[in-house]
């Protein structure tokens, strides 16, 4: 445990010093080295421990979930350091602190420590979203702040309910409690609060604007990593209490509503943000269905191809001078189109890329209705991403790849191939056919539905708040009557 704590300390320490010293990118790289060494030391043993004395202390425990997210965040940190050169030093400082908080959050097994870490990730995220100071970004950040603060107030009330009944804040203690009214209500409040932080549809309508308007490297890390911290908190709480079916229901809601919005969205980064909301549904299905391995693989795979898509989309906006998908076609350089294309086929699930392998692993362990839901979600994802095809196919010749996108693309391909070789059932004809079939069906569905005059609602602040409270109310009812 000491090794993990020292790794996190390295991140926080170097992050703070970055504010003061001009060579911030170098210091941030030192933090990355620190974190990598610490990961190499603690990961093999999966240690469990306490930060402090006896049963008052904060329980920390390394497990597969923590290891997966440590790996992902260290890798994304390296990618962003490669991608972003010459930014102001507070950008690197905030980024380093953000990764440090994520590393600490996934190890924690304590309700209040989770609360403080979630608040810290969201606070850094607010700052990063509003960093460039354009009015739309500041507003997106403020909306993010208001909605997540409401969620966190519900979470704090939930902490109170659980503590008053159980006399302890640790998650293992929660799992030993008989489910009476106060505990149920507390768990409902905790789940609603974490869902508001974790980008679940109806609970977190801040996500489209915050991820859609932020600078693209920030969107990449927010979508790839930070938004999943809420999902991690939900998985931990539901795992301790045994409320998997709530997660499955939330996963279905966020999966299908996210696709519904993504399908008709015209702005490229907002479209990617809605797609993130629907992708979180896959992970919730996995965590709720008890298949943590599949859910984790999907979370990591999504953490690879979504940043690739966001980085490429940011370059595309710069090259074409617009953010409307229709107008991007014909204006993008070959390198940008390659990044966008690789991300698109990976998220749609083309064998043998990372998206296909992760979906296949998730598919194996789901019950039959879950398999159908997952297939429908894949068709929807492929359909919504079909609108990027003209942008990818037509364009200019230029070739200016960036190191960050190159590394991400390499891992998306390499990781997928490695998984497919390691798990032979992924290369069986039936799963290959269902993977390709989902893409083909998605393309057909796109052309069938494209002209329909549906327009999904526009989520302004007031509607988002109402949606949060309405959905929170429904969740509380469900958990109480459960």
């Amino acid at each position: 445990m000491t090794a993990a704590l020292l790794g996190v300390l390295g991140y926080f320490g170097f992050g703070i010093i970055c504010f003061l010293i001009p060579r911030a990118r170098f210091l941030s790289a030192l933090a990355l080295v620190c974190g990598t060494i610490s990961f190499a030391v603690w990961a093999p043993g999966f240690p469990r421990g306490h930060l402090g004395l006896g049963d008052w202390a904060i329980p920390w425990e390394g497990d597969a979930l923590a290891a997966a997210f440590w790996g992902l965040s260290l890798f994304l940190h390296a990618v962003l350091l490669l991608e972003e050169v010459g930014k102001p030093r507070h950008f690197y400082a905030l980024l380093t602190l953000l990764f440090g908080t994520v590393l600490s959050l996934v190890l924690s097994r304590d309700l209040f420590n989770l609360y403080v870490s979630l608040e810290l990730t969201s606070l850094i995220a607010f700052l990063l979203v509003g960093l460039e100071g354009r009015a739309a970004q500041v507003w997106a950040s403020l909306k993010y702040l208001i909605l997540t603060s409401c969620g966190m107030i519900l979470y704090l009330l939930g902490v109170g309910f659980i503590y008053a009944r159980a006399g302890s804040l640790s998650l293992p203690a929660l799992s030993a409690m008989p489910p009476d009214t106060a505990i149920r209500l507390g768990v409902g409040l905790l789940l609603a609060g974490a869902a508001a932080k974790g980008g679940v549809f109806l609970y977190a309508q801040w996500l489209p604007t915050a991820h859609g308007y932020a600078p693209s490297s920030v969107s990449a890390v927010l979508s790839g990593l930070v938004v999943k911290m809420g999902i991690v908190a939900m998985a931990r709480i539901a795992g301790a209490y045994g409320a998997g079916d709530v997660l499955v229901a939330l996963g279905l809601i966020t999966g299908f509503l996210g696709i519904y919005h993504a399908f008709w969205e015209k702005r490229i980064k907002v479209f990617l943000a809605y797609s993130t909301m629907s992708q979180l549904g896959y992970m919730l299905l996995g965590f709720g269905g008890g298949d943590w391995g599949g859910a984790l693989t999907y979370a990591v795979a999504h953490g690879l191809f979504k940043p690739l898509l966001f980085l490429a989309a940011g370059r595309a906006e710069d090259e074409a001078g617009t953010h409307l998908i229709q107008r991007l076609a014909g204006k993008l350089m070959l390198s940008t189109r390659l990044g966008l294309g690789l991300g698109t086929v990976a998220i749609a699930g083309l064998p043998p890329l990372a998206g296909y392998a992760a979906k296949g692993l998730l598919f194996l362990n789901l019950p039959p209705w879950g398999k159908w839901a997952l297939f429908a979600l894949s068709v929807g994802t492929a359909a919504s991403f079909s609108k990027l095809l003209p942008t990818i196919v037509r364009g200019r010749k230029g070739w200016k790849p960036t190191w960050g996108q190159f590394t991400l693309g390499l891992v998306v391909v390499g990781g997928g191939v490695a998984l497919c070789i390691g798990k032979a059932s992924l290369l069986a004809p039936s799963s290959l056919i269902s993977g390709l079939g989902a893409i083909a069906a998605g393309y057909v569905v796109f052309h069938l539905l494209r002209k329909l005059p549906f327009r999904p609602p526009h989520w302004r602040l007031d509607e988002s708040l109402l949606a949060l409270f309405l959905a929170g109310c429904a969740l509380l009812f469900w958990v109480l009557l459960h």
Partner: protein
Amino acid sequence: MKRALTIALLATLLGILLFGLTDLFPPAEVRPWAEMARAYGAGNGVASIVLGSRLYDTLLEVLVFALAMVGVRYTLKPLGKWREPVVPERGVVREMADVLLPVIIVFAVYLAASGHLGPGGGFPAGAIAGSGLLLLAMAKGIERLSRELHEGTLEPLEYGTIAVLLVLGCLSIPLNHRGSGLLVVFNLLIGIEVTIGAWVVLHYFASHRGEI
């Protein structure tokens, strides 16, 4: 219509929570804390939790506080300074500031230094010292005070304090180093940090207001 629906929704949620409250009492037994407090060298149960068994939460919280100050700074700096000077108060405030300020500062230091024994601690001490600075700003005029306490020295002090706090805190957990001395150091460092933060908020909100 929307108004009525909103009120109905909030009333429903309130009803659910109040229904849950009926099941909440009596709450769980208080775990005996005296032994834990003694192990950390504290006479105050709250301080032994904040600076002892849950020190890690406190470190994250200090980071939250510092980052909010960073955010205030970077958001308000581009807005430009308030054109008219904030007029210094005359009379009562000015006279009383001379009398009250030493008392306020001494009280803040006392609270920080004895926070592990009785009520007090770094956060209240910092808030009190910050309000002392507010009084001083009202008496002397905020421009004059901000010329004396300028950014160039405050910023390194602020980040340096946090860095020292983080390193001390994170190392004391695995090394299992405990004792009253450590708690006093933590309280004083937190007090300094909160004072600077309070000054940053006060200074930026008062002087970079932009125009409406």
